[in-house]
């Protein structure tokens, strides 16, 4: 009887602590996002003028949003920059998916000379930080006339693709090879098998790669800034927001409500996209748990 009672108390204690930790972490997780959302409607032009009631506003102030959509910087506007970002990020996502799946498939299924060395090489090469190599990449790409969107897409793609290729490899490992053998007996070529069977069954990896590739390009500042800074019409959303809100020079007080509004406009759609495809992405990550123990 005492044993049962003790067990019950322990259970209540365990669940109580669990809920307390979860609730604290929920508040910590939401707070900065709630804060920026409120600031975007506060109409506070600088951080100093943002009073505490700014994060609990009584009425919504749309000045910042109006300004952001009407601003025109030498022919560039926020909507144009957002469109540029979408083109850049979308192309990076598509290219990343194709590369990751081809490489993942080859790692998983094909018999290739020196595969182990090749895989280790591919893995280790990503250790080189590209923010520190911005200069050599810039000079090298300039020689090939690639200081443009194509150059940026080329620079963004491999990081995501390699990471995703290793996850793709694990997912493809879990697809029975017999599916493909049967399809190949039915007369499909290896490439058709790849498109029709592997692509479809590895859909979680496709979603994960697409989102990682998309957000990598959508959120890059360093490279986009050095490649595009001279042409305001080609700016990406983030470069434009940086300029509009005066964030380039931290010493001058940034236009804080503009930054907040831009953060909401750029942040919410991507967050929604991630949340919508989240179930798929978790399935891709669980392939990582299938690492041979």
């Amino acid at each position, binding site marked *: 009887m005492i044993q049962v009672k003790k067990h019950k108390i322990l*259970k209540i204690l*365990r*669940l109580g602590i669990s*809920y307390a*930790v*979860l609730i604290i*972490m*929920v508040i910590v*997780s939401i707070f*900065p*996002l709630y*804060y*920026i959302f409120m600031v975007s409607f506060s109409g506070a032009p600088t*951080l*100093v003028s*943002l009073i*505490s009631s700014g994060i609990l506003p009584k009425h919504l102030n749309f000045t910042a949003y109006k300004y952001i959509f009407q601003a025109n910087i030498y022919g560039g506007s926020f909507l144009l920059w957002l469109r540029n970002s979408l083109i850049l990020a979308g192309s990076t996502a598509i290219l990343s998916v194709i*590369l990751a799946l*081809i*490489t993942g498939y080859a*790692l998983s299924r*094909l018999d*290739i*000379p020196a*595969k182990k060395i090749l895989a*280790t090489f591919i893995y*280790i*090469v*990503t*250790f080189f930080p*590209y923010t*520190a190599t*911005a*200069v*050599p*990449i810039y*000079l090298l790409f300039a020689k090939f006339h690639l200081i443009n969107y194509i150059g940026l897409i*080329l*620079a963004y*793609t*491999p990081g995501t*693709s*390699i990471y995703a290729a*290793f996850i793709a490899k694990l997912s493809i490992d879990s697809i029975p090879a017999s599916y493909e053998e049967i399809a190949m007996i039915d007369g499909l070529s290896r490439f058709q098998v790849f498109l029709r069977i592997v692509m479809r069954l590895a859909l979680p990896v496709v979603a994960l790669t697409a989102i990682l590739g998309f957000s990598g390009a959508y*959120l890059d*500042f360093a490279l986009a800034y050095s490649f595009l800074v001279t042409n305001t019409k080609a700016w990406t959303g983030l470069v434009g927001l940086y300029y509009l809100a005066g964030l380039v020079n*931290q010493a001058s007080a*940034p236009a804080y409500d503009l930054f907040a509004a831009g*953060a909401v406009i750029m942040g919410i759609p*991507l*967050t929604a996209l991630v*949340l919508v495809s*989240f179930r798929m992405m978790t399935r891709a*990550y*669980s392939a*990582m*748990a299938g*690492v*041979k*123990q």
Partner: protein
Amino acid sequence: MKKDKVFNFFYFLPIVVIIIFVFVLPLIYDLYISFTNFGSLHLFKYNYVGLLNYIIIFKYGYFLDLLKNTLIWTLGSLATYMPLGFGLALILNQPDLKGKSIFYAILILPWAFPSFISLLIWQGLWVYPYGIMNRLILPMFHLPTVNSSTSTTDAWIELITVDDWLSFPYFMIVFYSALQSIPRELYDIADLDGANTFTKFFTITLPSLKKTIAFVAVGTFVYTWNNFYPIYLLTDGGPGISTETFVTYSYQQAFSNSNFALAAAWSIISTLFVIILSIIVIKYTHILDSFT
């Protein structure tokens, strides 16, 4: 059959070509620049100067300071966000916990929201003394204010807490997925044997996740070592150079001081470090075996 093997290599061709173009050639180029005096003073006509840049770094260039900072940054982040994510995954993995999916959906928000923008938000939150953290939140809990522009300790606290906020969901997701792949029966059998929670954790949970933890830890170590935006945006390496890491310092040498040669030398040193460390770890833990 032999012809097939060679043909199969073509599947690797696209990634290999793009890697050579984006990683290998810039690396060689960077190595070459590091032996010259390429910079704002010698922009169009630069000469070979041998090991001069490396001599500057090891003799006068804060090498040990930056190594220490890079290690504090990397290990400090790793040692906090991995346990935090792992702990939350364990909490969520309890079968009798209710509202799991709601907690889960909210806790992944910091990871789902674009990180670069989050960093800018945090930068504003921590500004001393006007930022909301210093003006409202910390006083609310009777905690001392944090001023990252004068105190090194404060700067590290700020950097690592923000990095924890950004990254804990990733570890929660990965470890939670991994935990769910452990067969429930193992725990049922342990229950029959009368094992307590701790025994179960150390004999079933931890051994089952060993490889996942190792793989994630190596990847994250390299990622954090190279992670440049948090420091660049939050403290800009300050106060002085006390939170400057190899990568941020190299970036600053290139873009603030236009000393491209010295920047290249710094990034070569940084990269050699990660590659050597990682090869040792990969050899020792065999984490890449499942991938090849």
